[in-house]
Every structure is written in C-alpha cells, then in structure tokens.
C-alpha cells in the first residue's frame, strides 16, 4: 500500500505549510519530551535506590549483638552478648535450606605495613562465602577458600585502594605484608561498588584470626544470604523467626533489639519496592496526562488546519477527489507529523537523559536515567493512534461537506 503519489501530495502540503506543520509537530514533540524526561528521572531515582544497597548482596541478613537493654530470667541489663562458633553452627544447621550463603565476621583494626609504607586498616576475618555477601569483586589473584580456613593460613585479600596506599603502582600479589606484627601473603586484590571505604579493607581467614588474636571461638557478627527462591515475605518471616530463636537460645528478652537483632535486606527491599511502585504509579498518571495534553493540542490544531483547508478540499472534490482520498491524505499527513515529532521528542529526551548521566547522582539521587524500550514502543503506538484519531474525526467531517459549501468557505 505504498502510494508514491500520495506521499508526494503529503510532503508538498507539509512543505508548503511549514509553520502549521511545525506548530502541530512541536506540541507532540514537547509532550513526548516531557514524558521521556519524567520516566527517565524516575528510573534514575529507582537506579539510585537499587545502587544504595549495591554494597551488600540483595538477599543479605546480618545477626548483630551488643549489650542487653532489658533484664531477663534474672540476668541484668547491660550484659555483653557474645556470638560464638556454636551459634553460627546452630543457624547453619537449623535453617540450612533457607540459606544460600553463610559467613562469620570478626572485626579488627590493624596496622598493615609494606616496606616503609604503613597505615591503620579495618581487617575482617571471614568465611569464603563472604565474597558473595559483600559483593566483593576480585580484580587479581583469588578470594579466601576453605583450605585457607582449614589450614588457618596467614593469607590476606586486600582492597584496591589499600593496595594503592602501600604498593602504589607496584604489583602486590604474592608479596608479604606485615599485619599487626605477623607476615601475611597477599593472595588477592578486590574492588567493591560500596565506595572508597570498602576498598580500604582487607579480609583474612576467620580461623586464622580466632587462633592468632585471642585464641577463642568468638565472632563479631554472622552474615547470611537467604535462599533467593524465598519470596520477600517469606524472607522477612525467616529473619524474624531466626531473631526469636536466637534470643531464646541466648537468654535474651524477646523484645531486646539492642542485645541481638537481625538486619534483613528483604525488609529494606520490600520497602523500596513499595515506594518505587507508588512513584511509578504517580509518574504514569502525570506522564499519561502530559500525553493526553499533547494529543488534545494536536487535535485542536488539526481542527483548525482542516477548517482552513476546507476550500482546498472543495476544489479537490470538484476535480474528482473521493471523500476517502481526502480523509486518507489528512490522516496520513497527521500521522507522519506526530510520528516524526514524537520520535524527535523521544530522541531529544533520551539524549538529554544520557547527558545527565550520573551527574545528578550526588545531589539529587538520580543515577543513569533512561527509558525502557517497552515504554518507548508504547509511547510511539499511542502517538500514531492519537495522530490518527486527531486527524480522522475532523477530516471525515470536512470530507462530507457538500463541495459547493466547501468551495464557498474562506
């Protein structure tokens, strides 16, 4: 159905009536531009929220202990709660099927020294699974493994910036560093999306730390990754269940948040999901409103344009144009203008979003704003349809005016 002559007529009409074409195009382009920017900015906000938790795995849970704040079973307030290996074993046995990753943590602060460079760093003693819980990215070498733990090896995985502090541009892998007076072998260098502080850390095997520093079975924190097959609700329930169990087992008041608590990413994810859902609903409402305003705009212009061209249609009809050919011509012209203008608005919007990029991340929490292909296609279809309707209704009316009345119009 490609009628070259029809297109020639349309291009001539557009070309000879540039102001009119530009006006109607502008309305649509502007509406789509706003629509794109709006959606892009919300997607940017959404990216920021997701990114805020990028430091840790999406399914991470942390068992934290401190001091009791409530007396319980004759025990006093202010008692320090200590997690031990047996608590870790209890959790991993009791909830094994609900857990994907598991690791204990011991926090230490040590001076790490290489040749003449030395500084104080946060060192974490962990299990191999910790790599996934903390989303540690290995740039060189390897992470800790089970053998390191079994043999209580004195090996260390250091952050990218820690390596830079001590080694500069020199290679660090297989070099020995002095950690709190003992010599450790650097087996890996990592980076982390959580920020600079995360990259000034170091990891050593949990067992090594327990042997070297205190010779006990104390642990500071237990980090878990719940089974990703669990729904958010089930994951939240799992966290609450574990919290109750542990408090009971360790003689802590059931409501004592201070003594023992489980920080569960599932709860945060659920909140963020709900928040983003509401935000998207608002944006869809406003975005659709903008589109509708654009459509009404072009309908108005089309009504005016067609009124203006009534005489021309009368002439064409006197010369033998069938009503359908006049309606077709006007509709095709309108669809062409709306589609081109819409595409222009969309391209401009996407371009502006790409210019914004990550520059607004710091101040406005907008990270990498963009529009998804689905929305682009949806908006395009809406555009073509609206161009069609906006032109069809008045054109049909104009084409049915008796030619003699149309010829009299001015």
């Amino acid at each position, binding site marked *: 159905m490609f009628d070259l002559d029809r297109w020639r007529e349309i291009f001539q*009409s557009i070309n*000879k009536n540039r102001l009119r074409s530009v006006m109607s195009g502008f309305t649509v382009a502007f509406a789509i531009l706003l629509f794109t920017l709006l959606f892009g900015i919300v997607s940017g906000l959404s990216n920021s929220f997701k990114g805020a938790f990028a430091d840790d795995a999406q399914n991470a849970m942390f068992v934290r202990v401190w001091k009791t704040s409530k007396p319980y079973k004759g025990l006093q307030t202010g008692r320090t709660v200590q997690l031990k290996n047996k608590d870790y074993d209890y959790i991993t046995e009791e909830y094994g099927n609900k857990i994907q990753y598991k690791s204990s943590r011991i926090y230490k602060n040590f001076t790490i020294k290489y040749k003449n460079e030395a500084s104080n760093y946060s060192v974490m003693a962990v299990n191999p699974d910790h790599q996934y819980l903390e989303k540690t990215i290995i740039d060189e070498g390897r992470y800790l493994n089970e053998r390191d733990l079994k043999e209580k090896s004195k090996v260390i995985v250091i952050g990218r910036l820690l390596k830079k502090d001590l080694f500069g541009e020199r290679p660090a892998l297989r070099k020995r560093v002095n950690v709190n007076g003992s010599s450790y072998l650097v087996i890996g260098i990592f980076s982390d999306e959580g920020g600079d502080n995360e990259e000034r850390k170091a990891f050593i095997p949990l067992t090594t730390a327990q042997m070297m520093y205190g010779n006990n079975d104390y642990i500071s924190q237990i980090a878990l990754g719940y089974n990703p097959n669990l729904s958010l609700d089930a994951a939240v329930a799992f966290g609450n269940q574990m919290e109750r169990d542990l408090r009971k087992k360790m003689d802590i008041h059931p409501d004592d948040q201070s003594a023992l608590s489980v920080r569960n990413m599932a709860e945060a994810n659920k909140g963020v999901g709900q928040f983003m859902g509401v935000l998207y609903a608002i944006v869809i409402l406003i975005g659709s409103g903008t589109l509708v305003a654009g459509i009404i705009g072009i309908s108005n212009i089309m009504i005016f344009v067609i009124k203006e061209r009534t005489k021309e249609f009368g002439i064409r009809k*006197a*010369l*033998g144009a*069938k009503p359908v050919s006049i309606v077709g011509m006007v509709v095709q012209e309108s669809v062409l203008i709306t589609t081109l203008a819409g595409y222009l608005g969309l391209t401009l919007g996407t371009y502006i979003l790409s210019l914004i990029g990550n520059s607004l991340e710091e101040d406005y929490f907008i990270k990498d704003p963009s529009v998804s292909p689905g929305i682009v296609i949806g908006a395009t279809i809406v555009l073509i349809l609206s161009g069609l309707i906006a032109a069809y209704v008045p054109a049909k009316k104009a*084409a049915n005016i008796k*030619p*003699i009345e149309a*010829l009299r119009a001015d």
Partner: protein
Amino acid sequence: MIKIEGLHKSYPIGKDSLHVLKGIDLHIKEGEFVSIMGSSGSGKSTLLNIVGLLDVHDEGTYHLNGQLIKNMNEKKAAILRNKFLGFIFQSFNLISYKTAVENVALPLYYKGMARKERLQIALDYLEKVGLKDWANHLPNELSGGQKQRVAIARALVTKPKVVLADEPTGALDSTTTDSVMDLLKDINDEGMTVFVITHEEEVAEQTKRVVRLKDGLIISDEITAVGKAKAV
C-alpha cells in the same frame, strides 16, 4: 447530454426555506455552447451547481450523459465529476501551494494516472492556453487572466463531456475576458459542450444559445446571432 425536467431546489433559512429553482426544464445537446443569463438571485449558480453535481436537487429529474442522477453519494459524484465534467470558477479556485502545471495535473491524479504521464499532459494543455512558460509558477505569481487560463486547462485536461463555467470572466478586465471567451469558443469548436453562467450581455452574445432565468424560472431560451450564423 444534459436533460433536466421539473427541477426544484430550496434552501432552508432558519425555519423557512428559500425556493430558488421553481421547475426548470432544460435540454442541452452534445456540442452546444449555452449561456445562462440572469441577475443575482435568479438561481443560475444553483442550477450550475446541480448540473455540476456539486449540489443536489429536491424534485424533478436530471440526466447527465443519459444517466439518471439520483441519490448520488459523494464517492459516485466524485467519479462522475472526474469523468464527465470540467469546472471553471469565477474565483479560479487554484490550489495556492501547487504550481500551474501541478494544478492542471490534479484531476488526472484523481483519475489514477501516473505522475510523469499526467505532468506531460498537463504541460500540453498549458501550451494550448499559451502558458507553457509559466508552468512552474505558483498561482500568486500569475495575473487574473493567466490564472483563469490555468483553470481552463485544468477543466479540459480530463477531456470532459461538459465544461461548466461559473462567471468565468467575472473577475477579469475586458481584454482578458475576450481571450478567455476565445478559448471557450475554441473548446466548443472542438465539440465539447460548454455551459457558461454570466450576467454580462457581451459574454452571452458570444455563445450560441442564451437561456434567461428570473426568480427560479426560465423566461426565454433562444439561439443567438452567433448560433444562427454557425448553424447556416
């Protein structure tokens, strides 16, 4: 060619209606050169619009080329207009954003003719009206007489059976009026039926038959001196 019997036409004006044509009987044979005379309000334009299928009549019968015109929808009317009729208007009615040759070629576009072919034919017709050199000018670059000649070329380009001219010289001075009338005479000499509406005696005198209209009725219908001369 055109056979009208007992034709009535009224226009509603508010609650009342204006009875414009009150029973017209008119037969025009192929190859005639007829002018309709009458003062404004006599119904002559209405008659032409009905003959030209631009308007519909209320009562009576109208046969165009032997075909009864009745319950005509816009699509059928458009096809008949394109096939049988050529229009020349007082105000030219050229499409302002199309060049002379494109205006002339437009009826052929609606006939479904290929672009190259119809532009060539349009050019031939422009040559016929002496405007070949002006083919690529827009209407607003042409004088009134030139515009009307473009309109005449456009009316002729489909080789219609009948050319309908509504006050074709109404907007022209006397010199250009003569050149336009000469063209119409040439067309008629080639055998085309020409139907002119005018209120100028000088114009009517140059046609072969004059029909006078008053208050929606034919008051006289006579062969002119020119018509008699030709007949002899």
